[in-house]
């Protein structure tokens, strides 16, 4: 969904640029609380993995492809604030080095693919974690649902921005239908990749998965309290 230069008018690009800069600034501060000896070694690697996976366009419908965005993966593996930083790093390198995503559209792309997919992916993930059974096996399931939802929502944010500052005079309703339709399909791919990525790390080292921490801590508390009972 990399937006090229020229899709949006200058004021919209400036506003998304400011919003993106603010989001990265806040994330830099908040990420401190997420980064500890367990998550820190993985941050650069998660960003590198997202970059690699974004190169892999998979066919969705005839003549159209899609690729991973990775917001949900990054948020669940290293934490949402750090996830915004990971995705922003990927988008910066893609825009500067690979001409993928316009330079003037960098703010727009950060808003769509770093902020929106992380926020939506993480919110859905946490929401499901609260209502679903608290065990680690549910972590990849919740993550992939968050991933699935994040893609069409990001496409809707694009449509909303286009309604405000799009470069062409087109039907916004028609644009919304087309964008959500194709991105719901891409979301299925996003969900599958997220399930595999989060599930793989969870299988070998659940303690390295940021989104599994609450579940693991609860389990430890249960074990401790039951041993105290036995001792008593």
């Amino acid at each position, binding site marked *: 969904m990399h937006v090229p230069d020229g899709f949006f008018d200058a004021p919209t690009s400036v506003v998304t640029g400011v919003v993106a800069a603010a989001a990265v600034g806040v994330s830099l501060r908040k990420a*401190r609380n997420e980064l500890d000896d367990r998550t820190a070694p993985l941050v*650069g690697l998660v960003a590198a993995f997202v970059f690699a996976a974004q190169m892999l366009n998979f066919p969705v419908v005839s003549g159209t492809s899609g690729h991973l965005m990775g917001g949900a993966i990054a948020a669940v593996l290293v934490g949402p604030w750090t996830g915004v930083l990971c995705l922003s790093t990927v988008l910066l390198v893609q825009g500067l080095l690979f001409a993928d995503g316009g330079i003037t559209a960098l703010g727009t792309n950060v808003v769509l693919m770093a902020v929106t997919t992380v926020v939506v992916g993480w919110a859905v993930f946490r929401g499901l974690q609260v209502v679903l059974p608290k065990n680690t096996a549910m972590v990849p399931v919740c993550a992939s649902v968050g991933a699935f939802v994040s893609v069409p929502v990001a496409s809707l944010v694009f449509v909303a921005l286009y309604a405000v500052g799009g*470069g062409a005079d087109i039907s916004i309703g028609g644009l919304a239908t087309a964008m959500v339709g194709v991105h719901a399909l891409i979301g299925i791919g996003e969900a599958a990749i997220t399930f595999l990525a989060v599930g793989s790390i969870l299988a070998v080292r659940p303690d390295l998965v940021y989104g599994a921490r609450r579940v693991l801590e609860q389990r430890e508390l249960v074990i401790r309290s039951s041993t105290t009972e036995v001792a008593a």
Partner: protein
Amino acid sequence: MKRVSTKVVAGGILLVALLLAGFVSFYASDSPDGLESVAEDKGFVDTAGDHATGDGPLADYDAGLDSERASVGVAGVVGVLVVLALGTGLTYVVRRRTREVDDERDSATTSA
């Protein structure tokens, strides 16, 4: 079961990323992505301007080598390493600032 070390997990992720970007990327679909395809259908794809770094050595994931497979593979591997370096550097900076803030807080508490 023996606990897998963080180094092994990190090495595994790096290996997968390098394989995906350096090798599998050649088999990725060439079709336009969701946004591009919708932009074509709705007739605004031409509003896209030329990219400011469109003439760069790795633009469009093409390292300009004779073999198309090698071109995209080299571009992918370079991208993975650059993103890894930036992401790791960023983590280092954020964490060092955290420690400095903690140190200041600690020294403030002890002196008080």
